[in-house]
């Protein structure tokens, strides 16, 4: 019982982090039809900014805010400077571009911050709760991770559903030409979309880093899981990304706890294959079936 609970809870925490990363991928895919392979290093470099601030003796929260803010900025800059020129080119150009960014940002981080392992603090305790005589593996930081991702999701839903900017961003994502004819400044919406996505990516980077070691490729393993989570949910659906992340996090946690941690990556791919065989568009795709 205790192992089951522990496995489920740590899976939930992990899943929330995957969900945040997947959400970042989905936000960009929806608006620009680009899979942002550079998402992980973009998040990583903003976490380094937080680390520099925290190591200089300022509070964790200042670093936290700085990472999110620099994520916002970095997303906007990357879209404006690097992505804009390839937006109306064949898709492969954008793929190569984000792969290139992946390598460049990596190298930059190693040059600027060094490639040794550095420990990143966590604002809350890293040991589990005790209820009666049962140890529950949910740590203070785990609770914070779950709440932080939930809060971001809630804010995104509020933004997209209930504000004019959110409506204009969605319109730009679905139909650029019609949006422009209606007076929406589509290019500005795309920049804002990238900025938001990069910020969500930075959040996932901060949550992975908390209480762990940070080095230039510490985010790389999350790319695979985040991407699987995004595809699981159907790349177009933010809710899908969240559900995909949770499913993946919990099931991988069970695989790791009951079978062995060495098959986790394999299990992720098996889950992906099974879902895509049953629902090729992902769990939450609402693409209409092709009529013959």
């Amino acid at each position, binding site marked *: 019982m205790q192992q089951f609970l522990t496995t489920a809870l740590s899976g939930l925490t992990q899943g929330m982090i995957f969900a945040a990363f997947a959400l970042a991928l989905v936000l960009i895919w929806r608006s620009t039809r680009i899979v942002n392979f550079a998402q992980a290093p973009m998040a990583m470099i903003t976490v380094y900014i937080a680390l520099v601030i925290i190591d200089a003796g300022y509070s964790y929260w200042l670093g936290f805010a700085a990472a999110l803010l620099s994520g916002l900025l970095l997303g906007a800059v990357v879209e404006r400077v690097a992505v804009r020129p390839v937006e109306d080119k064949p898709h492969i150009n954008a793929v190569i571009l984000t792969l290139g960014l992946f390598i460049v940002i990596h190298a930059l981080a190693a040059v600027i911050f060094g490639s040794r392992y550095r420990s990143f603090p966590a604002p809350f305790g890293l040991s589990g709760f005790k209820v009666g005589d049962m140890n529950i593996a949910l740590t203070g930081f785990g609770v914070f991770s779950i709440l932080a991702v939930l809060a971001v999701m809630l804010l995104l839903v509020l933004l997209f559903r209930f504000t004019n900017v959110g409506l204009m961003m969605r319109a730009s994502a679905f*139909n650029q030409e019609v949006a*422009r004819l209606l007076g929406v400044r589509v290019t500005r919406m795309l920049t804002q979309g990238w900025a938001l996505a990069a910020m969500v990516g930075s959040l996932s980077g901060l949550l992975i880093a908390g209480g762990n070691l940070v080095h230039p490729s510490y985010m790389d393993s999350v790319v695979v899981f985040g991407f699987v989570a995004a595809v699981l949910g159907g790349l177009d659906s933010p809710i899908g990304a969240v559900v995909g992340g949770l499913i993946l996090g919990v099931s991988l946690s069970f695989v790791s706890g009951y079978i062995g941690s060495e098959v986790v990556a394999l299990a992720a791919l098996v889950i992906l294959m099974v879902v895509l065989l049953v629902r090729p568009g992902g769990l939450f795709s609402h693409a209409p079936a092709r009529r013959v």
Partner: protein
Amino acid sequence: MLDIRDLTAAYGPVTALDGVSFTAPEGKITAVLGANGAGKTSLLRTISGLLRPTRGTAYLADQDLSRVPVERMSRLGLSHVPEGRGVITELTVDENLRLGGMGRADRAKPADLERIYTLFPKLADRRHKTAHVLSGGERQMLVIGRALLATPKVLLLDEPSLGLAPRIVAQIFDLLKSLVESDGLTIVLVEQNARSALSIADFGVVLNLGKLVVHDDAAVLAGDDTLRHAYLGF
């Protein structure tokens, strides 16, 4: 109101529009007719800036439109309802309409939205459904309503009758006619369905291979047998 002078545009090496000039007068409907590939859609796309003219320009009142970005057009009072309707099917009916109110110089008031719902009661019933569930005729009503929310002076309509039952076409054309009378709207109506278009239009323009062939009163065009047989197919 809308003054088109020597407008010329091309898709790469292919000329789509070749020195077209005419004026769409204020408070009137001007029908743009012609066969497939005559340049009707290209004409509207060039006016609204989706396609940039290689020569010539369009004036809205006295404003030269040739350098105005597409996104600014609706604020100047030009609304373009593109071919294939342009409903954003992933958004709800209400969201589609609200979008229409964002591209205008002032702010849309709730009363403006309610006016559209009174005009199209069928849309009001489905306000919070995704536009995906609407029929062809309802979609056409939605895009017209959405364009009206931008409070245009000039409305460019690309084939509103496409794929609709004759009864629905008649309903929509009646509505356009009454809007012209009530709001003093200027309409440029591109149509394949020449007979219906000429029945509500004040003036008609016939395009062939990107060139303007005739520009005359709608009644004159409808009565000209040779022209009808040669270009309009009825």
